[in-house]
């Protein structure tokens, strides 16, 4: 019996990033869903629990930081590992310094994305 494919939710407002990560992860055996902002991502996570989330920080409507806080405060969702993917390190630093009540994300990946590094990180977190 083959093991079911692990699922990843890619959250980023930039279509190029969604396209790129979807192709990369699908090619490496993952089921991929995408969302363009925090609100849409929360709907998708609640509809189907992913095994891992890659999360952009700066997005319109609901930012990655707010989405992250929401899932960390939700008993059903708080266990899902999150990899922050962002090009703005200051955003991440601000996020880290403001995370008084929430634990830090499981992984951090700066843009441009290193293909091998992100695949290894995902493997380690969900295999």
């Amino acid at each position, binding site marked *: 019996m083959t093991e079911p494919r692990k699922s990843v939710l890619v959250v980023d407002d930039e279509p190029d990033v969604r396209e*790129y990560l979807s192709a990369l992860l699908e090619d490496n055996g993952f089921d991929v869903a995408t969302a363009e902002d925090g609100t849409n991502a929360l709907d998708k996570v609640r509809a189907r629990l992913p095994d891992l989330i890659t999360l952009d920080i700066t997005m319109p409507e609901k930012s990655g930081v707010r989405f992250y806080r929401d899932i960390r405060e939700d008993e059903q969702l708080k266990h899902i590992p999150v990899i922050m993917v962002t090009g703005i390190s200051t955003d991440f630093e601000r996020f880290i310094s403001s995370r008084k009540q929430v634990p830090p994300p499981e992984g951090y990946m700066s843009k441009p994305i290193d293909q091998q590094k992100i695949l290894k990180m995902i493997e380690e977190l969900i295999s």
Partner: protein
Amino acid sequence: MAKEENREPPYDQLFQAMPCYISIQNRDLRIIEANDKFKRDFGTLNGRHCFEVYKGRTEKCEVCPVEQSFADGLSHRSEERVRTRDGREVSVIVYSSPVKDQEGRVTSVMEVSTDVTEIKALEEKLRMSEQRYRLLFDRVPCYITVQDPELNVIEANQRFIEDFGRPETRKCYEVYKHRREECLHCPVQETLRDGGVHHSEEVVASLDGDRINTLVYTAPILDTEGNIDSVMEMSTNITPIRELQSQLESVGLLISSISHGIKGLLNGLDGGMYLVNTGLKKNNPERLSKGWEMVQRNVDRIRSQVMNILYYAKERVPQWERLNGGEIGAEVFKVLEAKAKELGVMLRYDAAEDAGAFDGDPQAIRAMLINLLENSLDACRVDSRKTVHRVTFEVTGTEDEIRFMVADNGIGMDRETRDKAASLFFTSKGAKGTGLGLFIANKITTAHGGRITVDSELDRGACFLVSIPRRRTIETLEKIGNKGGRND
């Protein structure tokens, strides 16, 4: 009697020993008696006139205290400059006092002249010194004021008066900051409180309304008993330093912003290359085409970002021309028509018949319009909530202005984003933009004496309206500091 003589020296002896010039003069102003000091410095008397002896004159002086004492029987005082027999100029204070007989008639006048040459020299030195300090006070290249304990400006130097007007005992906060209430933090108050030197940095406004950054130092002025009488405030204009600092901060922000922009572009290129490579390997033409489109688009973005960085970094001399609004709009539309098609955005262009002509730098106007249109196309590209995206580009005009409107139904902006839209390096696109595009569009519009208004709502789209005067005004020329020229 002999005893008394021993106790008190004879009057004649006292008269001779007095350390001043004493003479007795008759009604003809002839000196009939004088003490030793007088004789030593002015020679023998021989019944000479006082004006001959003192001043070498042949006629009496215009104002003569001795003559006055003869006339009214009272004492008089005057200040004179006399010359000794060896030619030395001596300043004297002269007291004349009448000598009366038993019937009270003035028979002669005693004149006592005290040598005050040294005091006069000291006074002159003091005057020169005061003048020098006054000059220093006025000419020193900073603002100096003296405030009393009620914060009234009671003294101000010339530099202060030139930029802030005569204080006329107004409060310092009124003159410097045009406020009605005392400032929250006041170094003058601190000095009044503890007698120490205090400093702070303040932003003040001159008579002309110019903002001036100042570095302020305050020091106490003490009275003879050591109490604080008033406070001296010295303010140095550090506006050029602050401007330079702000420019350096901008350069720092530019570098950081460019780095973030490049990261986003590299990511897009990486993604495009990955799709091209795997599309070829998997023989998947759809993936190949998507990847290639991604590579092309990111190369385009690199091009436009480099242009913006160059535009920001280089001081351009505007090349003024009479431009046709409709024609320049059509040129820009043609440049972006293909890009809109690739992105699946319906780009519509419309120029009103009366759009007409205006004064502008064609290269700058094109850059401004391309930035606005690319911004709108990008706002549609990243919006996945709608299936149909539109960008409308219109050129219209009034009698005085040419108007360019760029409207889209992309992701839109909330209030905060809208307010910050034109500020330097602000981007709502995270790592995907440098934040230079709208800043440069705004900079170009302002340099043309125009303005950009933004109307937008999150998720509904945005509308940018650029209004530029048809004719260059004096204000525009002053703002640009240029009367036209060539670009190099």
